């Protein structure tokens, strides 16, 4: 029983926090307290979910007592659970960062309800087992993120939000059209059900169109090669806290949806699709890293690096061997932490040096040496230097591509790694090493609220890097579920078999006991 309830809290807690914060619209202090309590609870709930998944394997919950293909199901496999846990951690870190960064006028404009609403959308998208429900979570995430992006209503933000909004709205419409075609062809939108039906069907033009529409829609969301232009056009205009949570989470939801779609629904078998993915992955890495090379604004550099790093994750999809999936899963988890940390550091650099434009700042190594150390941890991790988390992430995906004889892709990944190092060194040289072009009129302090989350995330990066073993094992499990769809389907439909056997339970939400019964019935042995 407790098992499947764990699935609900990561979505319920933020949505309740958002509602409660909205109730205290004119009482900013109450909103702050509600928000922080919500973030701590969310973090605890998401860690608990991950521990349950580690212990019990994939878990599923049906809503409203409907039998599996008809109602909405929530499913947590290791990858989804890990992403929810990272979301909880990141939300907490950004929440602490926000104590200083979020201004009173942002709070009056509804920062807390929007922030928690966005977390709801992100967690919902990770956990849902229903394709249409995924669309709904995407829209929840989109509309709240639009509100967060434009929260200062400055000229830059309005401009950036229009670009971000139009392209992402177009992406979700493509997704909706794909859903309509898929439903017309199969008659179901439950992902586990689709996972059973679709492999047996011949790939009609309608289904192929649906698959490609999904790919295009998620490519816009994830910022893949030809469709990433909204990302560097908007992320640098957000406030620093918002920018960090966007950089960490939003594109990764798109990556997760791509992974889910092309492992569970449409299997990558033919060479054509593999060539497409290989090409997209390589081009995403290359364009991202070269786009960053010319920039001077720290967050614009980092925005382009998001794109380039997404390419590494997509390598998993292109190679599609178990070890590649493990590598890609590890990569996503490592990347969310590192990238969000770098965006937070951009805020700290601005606080310390007066600007996030590298041409106007400098000399921070002398004035804030500890900030330099904190910067080097995520920066070198992003570039993939040992012993940090990025090294293992890159090692896993490149190792997978060499084993599968994708030498070109491996070469691109290595070269892009070097170029990433170049960009990080550019920030280092300009912001920390060179003398400041401006004589600082006073000593600038970085607020403690900035340092705590940066240290927190840096510590996680170091932990993953130095004690990689358990994380790699976990990523392997995540990869195994991605490779083996029955592992994902079993908890959903094992429960149904149990419900048929004992129709009495049907009124209640189908719980873990029912899943166990299903396992006893010999439907699936994987579920303990």
């Amino acid at each position, binding site marked *: 029983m407790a098992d499947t309830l764990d699935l609900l809290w990561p979505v319920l807690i933020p949505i309740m926090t958002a509602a409660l914060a909205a109730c205290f619209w004119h009482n900013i202090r109450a909103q702050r307290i509600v928000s922080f309590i919500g973030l701590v609870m969310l973090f605890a709930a998401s860690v608990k979910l991950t521990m349950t998944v580690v212990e019990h394997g994939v878990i599923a919950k049906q809503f409203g007592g409907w039998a599996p293909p008809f109602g909405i199901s929530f499913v947590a496999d290791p990858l989804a659970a890990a992403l929810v846990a990272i979301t909880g951690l990141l939300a907490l870190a950004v929440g602490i960062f926000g104590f200083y960064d979020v201004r009173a006028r942002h709070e009056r404009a509804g920062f807390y309800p929007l922030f928690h609403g966005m977390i709801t959308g992100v967690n919902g998208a990770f956990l849902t087992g229903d394709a*249409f429900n995924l*669309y*709904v979570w995407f*829209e929840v995430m*989109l*509309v709240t993120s*639009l*509100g967060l992006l*434009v929260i200062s*209503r*400055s*000229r*830059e*933000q*309005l*401009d*950036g*939000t*229009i*670009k971000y*909004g*139009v392209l992402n*709205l*177009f992406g979700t*419409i493509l997704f*909706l*059209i794909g*859903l*309509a*075609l898929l*439903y*017309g062809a199969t008659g179901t*939108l439950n992902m586990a059900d689709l996972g059973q039906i679709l492999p047996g069907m011949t790939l009609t033009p309608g289904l192929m169109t649906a698959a490609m529409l999904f790919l295009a829609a998620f490519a816009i969301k994830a910022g893949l090669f030809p469709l990433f232009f909204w990302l560097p*056009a*908007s992320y*640098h*205009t957000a406030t620093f806290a918002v920018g960090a949570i966007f950089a960490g989470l939003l594109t990764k939801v798109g990556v997760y949806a791509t992974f889910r779609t092309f492992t569970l629904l449409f299997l990558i078998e033919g060479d054509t699709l593999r060539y497409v993915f290989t090409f997209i992955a390589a081009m995403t890495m290359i364009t991202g890293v070269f786009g960053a090379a*010319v*920039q*001077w*604004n720290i*967050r*614009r550099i980092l925005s382009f690096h998001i794109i380039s790093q997404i390419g590494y994750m997509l390598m998993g999809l292109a190679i599609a061997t178990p070890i590649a999936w493990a590598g890609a899963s590890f990569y996503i988890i490592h990347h969310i932490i590192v990238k969000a940390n770098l965006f937070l550091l951009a805020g700290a650099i601005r606080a310390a040096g007066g*600007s*996030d*434009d590298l*041409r*106007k700042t400098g000399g921070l190594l002398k004035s804030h040496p500890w900030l330099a150390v904190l910067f080097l941890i995520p920066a070198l991790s992003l570039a993939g230097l040992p012993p940090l988390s990025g090294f293992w992430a890159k090692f896993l995906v490149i190792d997978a591509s060499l084993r599968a004889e994708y030498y070109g892709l491996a070469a691109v990944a290595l070269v892009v790694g070097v170029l990433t190092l170049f960009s990080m060194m550019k920030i280092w040289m300009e912001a920390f090493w060179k003398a400041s*072009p*401006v004589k600082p009129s006073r000593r600038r302090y970085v607020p403690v609220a900035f340092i705590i989350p940066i240290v927190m995330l840096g510590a996680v990066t170091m932990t993953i890097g130095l004690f990689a073993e358990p994380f790699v094992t976990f990523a392997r499990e995540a990869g195994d579920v991605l490779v083996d769809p029955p592992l994902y389907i079993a908890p959903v439909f094992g429960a149904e078999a149990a419900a048929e056997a004992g129709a009495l339970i049907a009124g209640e939400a189908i719980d873990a006991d029912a899943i166990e019964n299903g396992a006893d019935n010999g439907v699936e042995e994987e579920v303990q």
Partner: protein
Amino acid sequence: MTFLYAAAIAAYSGCGLYLMLSRHVVRVVLGLALLTNGAIFLIFFSGRIGSMTPAVIPLGDQELALDAANSLPQALALTAIVIGFALTAFAVALLVAAYKRLDTLDAREMTAAEDMGSPFLPPEGRPVEKAASGKADAGQGDQKMTGQNTTGEVKTNG
């Protein structure tokens, strides 16, 4: 009937896409709204129209009539309509705010975000000699030029 329906969806989506290609952002939002409607019609159609029997279990019966209409696409379409409405409302509000602040609805003149920390423009605040490097790379002519003009204005304002 099916053909008519398909033609209607095609017309909707075609008009939507055409409007989206405009540089006038109000047209873009109208195009998005039309395209959403096209998608909603498609969802509705994917449940197969034809059956006129309402999806209601008659009094005394235990299960739905075999030829009952499929009610799921209606539920999906309703959800999509609500979401589409909310997002269109947001987009229109965004455009109003943008028009007030940016004084334009032409996508070509909306360069505020692009100019923020642009490598092709000198950083705001104080002149830096690196401005020359922007000139060397100004391969993409017009757009860069308009970008520079607008920041010029911004600077005198601020």
